[in-house]
């Protein structure tokens, strides 16, 4: 019989305690790995809210502020940028495409984004994924709208439904615009703020605000010069070459006619994310503490079992076991417990991922890849097993010392 066999039989004789230990280490390791995963997924979902856009241009303010309202529809712009500037920037030789966006209105608390058809062609999220329509088509006249997936689902809108927009961003009954909009398209889910956005043509918004002032309402076709906006909130910019990003950015920042700024979305997203690092590390510390508690439990049980097994160890010693073999047995024991615990934790996580993954993606827009494990998680798992091994050294060393002094058991 090998020592490993002996250890396994010994563990099997203490089924309940062993099972509870494995469970506690399993749960804490799945917590540790799970928090890492959620953090990663959140970061990923967050930083992939916009991609493929080289610069975002808006009135001069903070870069985070511009990012927040242009991408996340949070907060408000301090000022708009004039249409004249938009057209001048569009004429830069380095600019490939330009999509103006106008914010400020809302529908039942959901933000309204006025833009051009180019938005649907050029907006990218995640790994350069384009927006796609689940139903219907892109708007083609001023009073047509395209809804984000989540919004359409929550408010139960279908193609052909008509709705009114309200002025300003408010959840209450604020001033409603008079014109009626018709749903012509519903976008597929993207797990970005796009899902919660009402998209209308820029001309539609111009008309809304014109009618508010003049009581004038006209259902003209797109491209009508009369519905050209005087200003927009921001522009998304795509360049012909990535190498010109900084020169274009500098040129816009130094714009003489108006106080403008251009930001690189990826850079500002990273800055925003790092400002949330404290929450991030708080989470991590909590899970580390949970894991430490699990290991204190392990240590406690190992000590108790050492106490209860003094006689057993003494018998092994008189049969010729060297103290180092006793040491090996105890380390092996806790290594088996921690190893099994971590495996259980990983299994638990991927099982949970199967069940919770789709729900989280649907509700929170979190794309959790719980069933696959990255190298970080594997390192974390190995680290837990390593800590388990180190923890076991304490009772194992005690067993070794006891073994050295252990003689005959004579009563």
């Amino acid at each position: 019989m090998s020592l490993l066999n002996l250890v396994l039989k010994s563990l099997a004789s203490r089924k309940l305690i062993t099972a509870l230990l494995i469970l506690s280490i399993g749960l804490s390791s799945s917590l540790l790995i799970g928090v890492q995963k959620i953090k990663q997924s959140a970061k990923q979902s967050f930083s992939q809210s916009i991609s493929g856009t080289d610069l975002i241009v808006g009135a001069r303010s903070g870069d985070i502020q511009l990012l927040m309202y242009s991408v996340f529809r949070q907060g408000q712009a301090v000022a708009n940028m004039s249409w004249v500037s938009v057209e001048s920037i569009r004429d830069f030789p380095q600019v490939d495409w330009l999509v103006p966006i106008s914010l400020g209105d809302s529908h039942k608390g959901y933000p309204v984004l006025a833009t051009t058809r180019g938005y649907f062609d050029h907006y990218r999220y995640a790994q350069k994924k384009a927006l796609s329509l689940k139903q219907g088509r892109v708007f083609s006249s001023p009073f047509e709208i395209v809804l984000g997936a989540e919004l359409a689902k929550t408010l139960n809108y279908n193609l052909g439904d008509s709705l009114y927009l309200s002025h300003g961003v408010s959840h209450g009954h604020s001033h409603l615009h008079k014109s009626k909009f018709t749903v012509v398209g519903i976008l597929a889910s993207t797990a970005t703020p796009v899902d919660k956005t009402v998209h209308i043509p820029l001309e539609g918004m111009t008309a809304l605000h014109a009618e508010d002032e003049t009581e004038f309402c006209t259902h003209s076709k797109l491209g009508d010069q009369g519905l050209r906006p005087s200003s927009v909130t921001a522009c998304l910019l795509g360049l012909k070459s990535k190498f010109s990003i900084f020169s274009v950015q500098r040129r816009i920042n130094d714009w003489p006619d108006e106080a403008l700024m251009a930001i690189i979305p990826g850079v500002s997203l990273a800055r925003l994310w790092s400002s949330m690092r404290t929450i991030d590390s708080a989470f991590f510390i909590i899970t580390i503490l949970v894991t430490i508690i699990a290991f204190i439990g392990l240590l406690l049980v190992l000590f108790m079992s050492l106490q209860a097994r003094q006689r057993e160890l003494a018998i092994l010693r008189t049969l010729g076991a060297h103290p180092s073999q006793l040491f090996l047995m105890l380390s092996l024991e806790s290594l088996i417990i921690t190893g099994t615990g971590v495996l259980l934790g990983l299994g638990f996580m991927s099982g949970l991922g199967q069940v919770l993954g789709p729900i989280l993606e649907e509700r929170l827009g979190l794309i959790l890849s719980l069933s696959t494990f990255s190298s970080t998680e594997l390192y974390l798992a190995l680290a837990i097993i390593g800590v388990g091994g180190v923890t076991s050294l304490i009772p194992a060393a005690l067993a070794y010392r006891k073994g050295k002094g252990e003689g005959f058991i004579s009563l």
Partner: protein
Amino acid sequence: MSIDALIQIKSLEFSYPNDPGFALNIPSLSIEKSDRVFLEGPSGCGKTSILNLMTGLMLPQAGTIDVLGSDITQLSAVQRDRFRADHFGIIFQLFNLIPYLSVIENIILPCTFSRSKRKKALQRSVPLGDEARRLCQGLDIAEELMQRPVQQLSIGQQQRVAIARALIGQPEIIVADEATSALDDERKSQFMELLIRECDRHQSALIFVSHDRQLKSQFASSYQLSELNTESASVTA
């Protein structure tokens, strides 16, 4: 100095570092390679210490201990453990067995720690379990008992399993430390009979340590521990 000496102790001095009240001082002790030796002594006279020293579990401060011709005080800790595993079979007073192993597994356990015992056991029967069964048959351990968890065995049955474990792999020396003290008189004589018979059959020498003088008659030679120890006056209980 006899070449046939089983164990030869010379000018041995031993005391526990944390117990200054106890000291063992044996100028000379020679146990012949005859067959059965009775070491007699009341509890507290240093029986356990002598056994620890003979089997290499502890080292004396001074003196030599020759076992089967080699001075075990000159061996390293690992060598002493291997020496004990290879040449000794040990029976205690009580609770000899590992509770989570079956009878058979308990019997073959010494072969885990001694390659020579394993080899010798396998020379007799393959696999090791069969050798354990063969030993059990000699000790009247019923087949049905062999599969049971050891806690379900009576003390008498447990002690018989302990004999089987001591005998496996034919060690040269069987040491029994107060092995009968938990048994009633009837069981005691049965146990002694079996132990001596099996030791003879397997050609193992038997060193039987006890305070029970009644058993002395069954042994060819006997030693009085309290007489051997010149420091016995200072022995504390």
